[in-house]
């Protein structure tokens, strides 16, 4: 059994130690906002924070989480009012929406470290997150907006 914190709640999970965190979050804990896209840390749809650091949950084994603090899209803000979430709505970023939890979690890490990123810094930080609908320019605009309004 592995015990850790998810969105400020203690959880204990009985799962094979090698189970990817992604499936623990989605299927064992029912937090389905974190998405499966590639299973190989290539697309970023499954991005969560582990102790504040963005991580691809499809490629982190649950055994590595003992005592750690995991934040998912559901835990980013209890009222969906994180500056990025508000900016995502204002810029009408999502289309199919499937990658957006991962995009927002990736962006949240950036703003936590660097509240006023340049466009180049945004692109560098976000380049591992694929959006097949092509909302990249709106993601940049939303991050810039959140950065200004936060």
């Amino acid at each position, binding site marked *: 059994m592995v015990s850790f914190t998810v969105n400020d709640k203690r959880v204990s999970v009985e799962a094979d130690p090698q189970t990817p965190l992604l499936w623990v979050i989605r299927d064992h804990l029912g937090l389905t906002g974190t*998405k499966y896209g590639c299973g190989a840390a290539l697309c970023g749809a499954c991005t969560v924070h582990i102790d504040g650091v963005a991580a691809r949950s499809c490629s982190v084994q649950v055994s590595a989480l003992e005592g750690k603090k995991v934040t998912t899209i559901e835990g980013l803000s209890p009222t969906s009012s994180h500056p990025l979430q508000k900016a995502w709505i204002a810029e009408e970023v999502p*289309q*199919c*929406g499937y*990658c957006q939890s991962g995009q927002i979690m990736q962006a949240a890490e950036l703003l936590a470290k660097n509240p006023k990123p340049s466009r180049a810094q945004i692109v*560098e930080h976000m380049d*591992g997150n694929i959006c097949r609908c*092509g909302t*990249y320019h709106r993601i940049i605009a939303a991050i810039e907006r959140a950065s200004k309004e936060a």
Partner: protein
Amino acid sequence: MTIMERDVARQGPELSRRGVLAGLGGMTFCLALGTDGVDLLGDAEANTMANAQITPWVRIAPDGTVTIYSAGAEMGQGSMTSLALILAEELDADWSKVAIEFAPADADIYGYTFQNQKMMAIVGSRAVQLYYTNLRTAGAQVRKVLIANAAEKWGVDAASLRTEPGFVVNPATGARLGYGEIAAFGKVPATLPAVDAKELKAKKDFRLIGKTIPRRDTPLKVNGTAQYAIDVRLPGMVYATALHSPVHTGQPDGWNDAEIKAMPGVIATVRLTNGIGIVAQHFEQAMAARNALKATWNKGAAANYDSAKALEDYVKVHHDPNAQTTDIDKKGDANAAFANAAKTYRAEFRSDYGYHAQMEPLNAVVRIAESGDKAEVWEGSQAPDATRDEVAKALGLKPADVTMHQCYMGGGFGRRSLGDYAAECARIAKQVNRPVKLVWTREEDIAHGMFRPQSFQCVEAATDASGKIVGWRHCVVGDGATLLHTGIRPLYYEIPNQHIYRRGVSHGIRLKHWRAVGHVFNTFAIESLVDQMAADAGMDPIEFRFQRMSITPKARKCFEQVAEMCKWTDKRPDGRALGISVTERSGSLGAGVVEISLDRASGKIRVHEVWTAIDGGVIVTPGAATANVESAILYGLSSMLHERVTMKDGAVEQSNFHDYNLMRMSDLPEEMHVSFVDVDTRPTGLGEIGNPFIGGAISNAFYRLTGKRLRHMPFTPERVLETLKA
């Protein structure tokens, strides 16, 4: 495995939509779509038709909430919102009180008529254009009923009353009745009032259409609550995944069944016609078992297929007089035009296979009732009616015994309209007698993909003594029948003598519609040759089209508008060049320009700026329309510069996003400019129109920059380097 902290689990959203509506007070309007459009049925008729499962389309609750069912399957394009908005416009509903629900999967009620068939498939940018008039009429009918009820209550002539959003008002007295208030006492007549087309609102009176109205699904997509089929969780549900024959059309001979069944959590293995299903307690266990499968396959038709070699063989097919030939368009006398030409032009083009790469890997959930005579399916489907039919067929049930719960789609792009993986899930669920969620891995999604076909094309043109284009020949060679020739007829040019035809082959490779599919490679070929002729004539490419081609007025307007947007004739910075192309799709027409630069050492093309002017008729939701075009532009850039599926020995060589390269943020143009031509004509499709002009525009810009022409898409750095050397 147990969940120790139950509070962490989020409650799933309400899955039963019919259930929500049942038992509420108020007025219900039902729609039956006849062959000639929508007929609204009042309560009385609906009640008499209860056994036929007529389902409400519009409901007005006493609290004023107007619930509208939307047949707009939502894959990111926004038509779930747009379709409801069209109805709400004519109903004069208060948009803040409109709730939208997915329409049930029942094409007899909610389908549109296409080629004499009722269907709900949201493909080919059809949603808004095919439902537009019907939904306006339906909204106007409901509004008339509300007015009639208010008139009766007030004892006045209905013709003297007006509506404001959510209210019927009497201008003479200032009296007002909310739609909810009317619903509480109102009666729906047995026969609903007719609405003449002239009674529909004029464009200038629209309150919702053409205004800045946000999509309804946006808030759910920033906090993880939007429900995709992959998120559905049912009591007692188990997880499945599948390994299909690596060679398309192959079948499993055998596999290490005992070893797989002994793996942790594995419940069952299921023989599928073209693969093996694995069922486990948890998805990660099913995935692990899939990875441990050692299967032998009966290889099927495509066993020795080599895509690169086949593409080269297409040249021979093109020259083979005995090849299977299908005429697509014959006009005038093309042979005579070429025989009498002052000058002729000829160019060959090639294109590779393309993969949809929707972000949500294909999946479905199926639950079969204990009695075995009913089933439910959850899927994100472009064609919920097809899903229902396919699941019913897989289970030996009637479609009416299958309930389809539509979900948001994590991208569609043409892949999700067959119900194939839902049917596969149903077969597995039947075997294991439990609710099953089937998820294909990304590797499976690619290996067992259905692709935009590869093609070889030969395009020829003939000019007369004045330099006008008088003859046109276009042959496309490949597999995929009609998929190959969408967009091959240049509807924006009126060429007097043309012969357009297909030479078909068959490889046994799975093919499918793909965001404008044939338009992508056909438009590339057409517009590259036109640009070549303009260069040969020493003319500006836009002027060439205006003077030497009979361009349609609609296309001319788009060219003029985009030329103005991009300041076409202005000098560009050193190392940059513009290229232009026109395109059409689903009734819409657009002209687009790209500005590119080239790294001659690496062969990497960079697109810096994109402009497009589109005639899409009345724009229902400008925000979503613009987003659709931007999306298609980037889909086009990604496919033209990066994406390529190849096959060896009948198997796909790519396996995930490390070798099937999608555009990333760092590849993004600095600016994209989308504009619509201001017209008052019926809306046409906008989901794909932004895509097909990209290939021609990039290759034409490349010519301006280098004097060389790109003839094989995608324009990968290797191909660019080869072209530069040639």
